[in-house]
């Protein structure tokens, strides 16, 4: 047996042990705020270790787990997302009367699964990580029990999630049948060797398409997006914010690594499929979002639309010269989306009220776009922050969303997918209508909005707004880091 190099997964190990201990500590701690702070401390320690590993590479566990620039970049992003998730939940769960210590433990376990996803170099690990990140999210979606909307969200997410996991497993089985290996590196050489006989390549293509279906579900790409609006609306807002960012980052990390590493030989078959999925996702997400009056549903459809934009980065994955910048653009867009997403959800949480019938979730809860009337006058800072997030989601300068979209469209044009770039620009124009409607409501309608002011919440939207603007002015260092991160992949 070769010696196991545990330093490869040290951030993961630390976080796992920390989450286990947190579960025990929480049993004896009355003040759940302490649990939240301890969870954040665990994430911070893991983030410190991850950042100390920048530049380090290696594999371990029989080449099933890999540490490289890509995994370090994604893991750092995931850990920061976890910290944002805790900052959003800290006051929110108390206010909504759902303060239970398990929230933070589940969040930590989910982050562990996401990080493992970024480090997976074997389809079995991809599957394991997919389950590890999903199962805590199913529970978190239903966390506002006995609120029926939340329970519905949890059950829907669980049933459809289990269904999509079935696709991934079947895909892995077919790939294994075609190549006799589940290791990403092994699949490439087996595929190259088998390119003379067509039958096993057919199996490989079907298998990779099934994996695409399962991961497409996780990142909410059309036509696998049906669950998204209901789950995002029903789940507690703090959970939705974490789910929208974290699950998407992890899903795309797996897609990028699996397809660009294991299936480059299938590019001629898979690229058209991804291009169509990407175009459909942008069109459907943005057009249905126009009709929404509920801010949570609006952001859910916006999240679908952004899955389409990120998928665009992934279309030219078979073209040797383009793929590196394209994947770097995808990573950059993930950062920009995560930051904007947490900011926007923080504003939603600031306006959400616990009133109404708790068992049905009906009543005035401050979740309609009409409830945002008058914020511009009463809470100028909050309104300004929300304006930044809406601009960033649309892609208007000077925000991070604009820079992200610029890199994405540039990559699509470099890969000669002109039509896709045109669709991206046109759907961005459509999206301006519903994003700016929120801004118009905030500034140009009279109203008496009620907002909540909590230190951690204010810090979240404040920091997200400032970073969204500042990083967009000097995007080069972040993009360089993303480019460095993907360099060793290809």
């Amino acid at each position: 047996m070769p010696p196991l190099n545990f330093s490869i997964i040290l951030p993961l190990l630390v976080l796992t042990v920390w989450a286990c201990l947190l579960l025990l500590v929480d049993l004896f701690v009355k003040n759940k705020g302490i649990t939240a702070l301890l969870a954040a401390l665990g994430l911070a320690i893991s983030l410190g270790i991850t950042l100390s590993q920048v530049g380090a590479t290696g594999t371990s566990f029989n080449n099933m787990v890999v540490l490289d620039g890509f995994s370090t970049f994604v893991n750092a992003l995931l850990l920061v997302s976890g910290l944002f998730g805790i900052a959003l939940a800290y006051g929110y769960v108390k206010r909504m009367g759902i303060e239970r210590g398990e929230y933070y433990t589940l969040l930590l376990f989910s982050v562990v699964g996401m990080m493992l996803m970024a480090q997976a170099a074997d389809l079995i690990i991809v599957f394991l990580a997919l389950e590890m990140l999903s199962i805590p999210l199913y529970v978190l979606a239903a966390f506002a029990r006995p609120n029926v909307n939340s329970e519905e969200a949890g059950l829907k997410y669980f049933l459809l999630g289990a269904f999509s996991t079935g696709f991934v497993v079947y895909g892995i089985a077919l790939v294994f049948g075609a190549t006799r290996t589940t290791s990403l590196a092994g699949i490439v050489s087996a595929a190259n060797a088998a390119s003379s006989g067509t039958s096993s390549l057919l199996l490989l293509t079907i298998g990779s398409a099934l994996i695409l279906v399962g991961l497409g579900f996780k990142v909410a790409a059309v036509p696998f997006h049906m669950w998204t609006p209901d789950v995002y609306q029903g789940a507690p807002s703090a959970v939705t914010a974490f789910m929208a960012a974290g699950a998407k980052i992890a899903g795309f990390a797996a897609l990028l690594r699996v397809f660009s590493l294991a299936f480059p030989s299938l590019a001629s078959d898979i690229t058209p499929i991804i291009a169509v999925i990407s175009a459909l996702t942008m069109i459907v997400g943005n057009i249905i979002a126009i009709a929404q009056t509920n801010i949570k549903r609006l952001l859910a459809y916006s999240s679908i639309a952004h899955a389409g934009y990120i998928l665009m980065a992934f279309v030219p994955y078979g073209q040797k010269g383009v793929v590196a910048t394209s994947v770097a653009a995808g990573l950059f867009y993930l950062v920009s989306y995560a930051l904007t997403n947490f900011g926007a959800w923080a504003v939603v949480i600031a306006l959400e009220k616990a009133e109404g019938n708790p068992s049905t979730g009906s009543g005035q809860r401050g979740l309609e776009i009409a409830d945002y009337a008058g914020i511009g006058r009463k809470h100028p800072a909050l309104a300004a922050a929300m304006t930044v997030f809406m601009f960033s989601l649309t892609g208007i300068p000077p925000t991070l969303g604009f820079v992200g979209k610029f890199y994405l469209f540039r990559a699509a044009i470099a890969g000669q997918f002109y039509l896709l770039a045109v669709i991206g620009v046109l759907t961005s124009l459509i999206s301006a209508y519903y994003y700016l409607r929120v801004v118009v409501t905030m500034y140009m309608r009279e109203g008496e909005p009620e907002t909540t002011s909590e230190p951690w919440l204010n810090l979240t939207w404040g920091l997200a707004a400032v970073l969204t603007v500042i990083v967009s002015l000097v995007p080069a260092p972040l993009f360089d880091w993303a480019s460095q991160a993907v360099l060793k992949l290809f």
Partner: protein
Amino acid sequence: MLLEYIAIGVMIALATVIAVIAIGLGELFGPKKRSSVKSEPYESGIAPIGPGTRRMPVRFYLIAVLFILFDIEVIFFLPWAVVFRQLGLFGLAEMAIFIVILLIGYIYAWKKGALEWE
């Protein structure tokens, strides 16, 4: 390669046809005398009392889930015990970690009152 599957395809088609014919002939020519007793669900010859879907205390499910969890722990012990000498200290440490993780779950369930019946 696909030609090898023809035999299975013919077999599936033949089995389907024969089953359809057998059931279809019975439906066509068989005598039908329906009565209320015949349409009752079969419960080993005893007359059924009440509807089949009764409400069960949810505590049974909790106990069942906990049982499965700790039952699987025992199943994992068996293969480990078989190769105990080959794995040596490494296996012992792995198993200790495994038990500690389950122990954390056990303490959690215990403290949350999942093991109390009332």
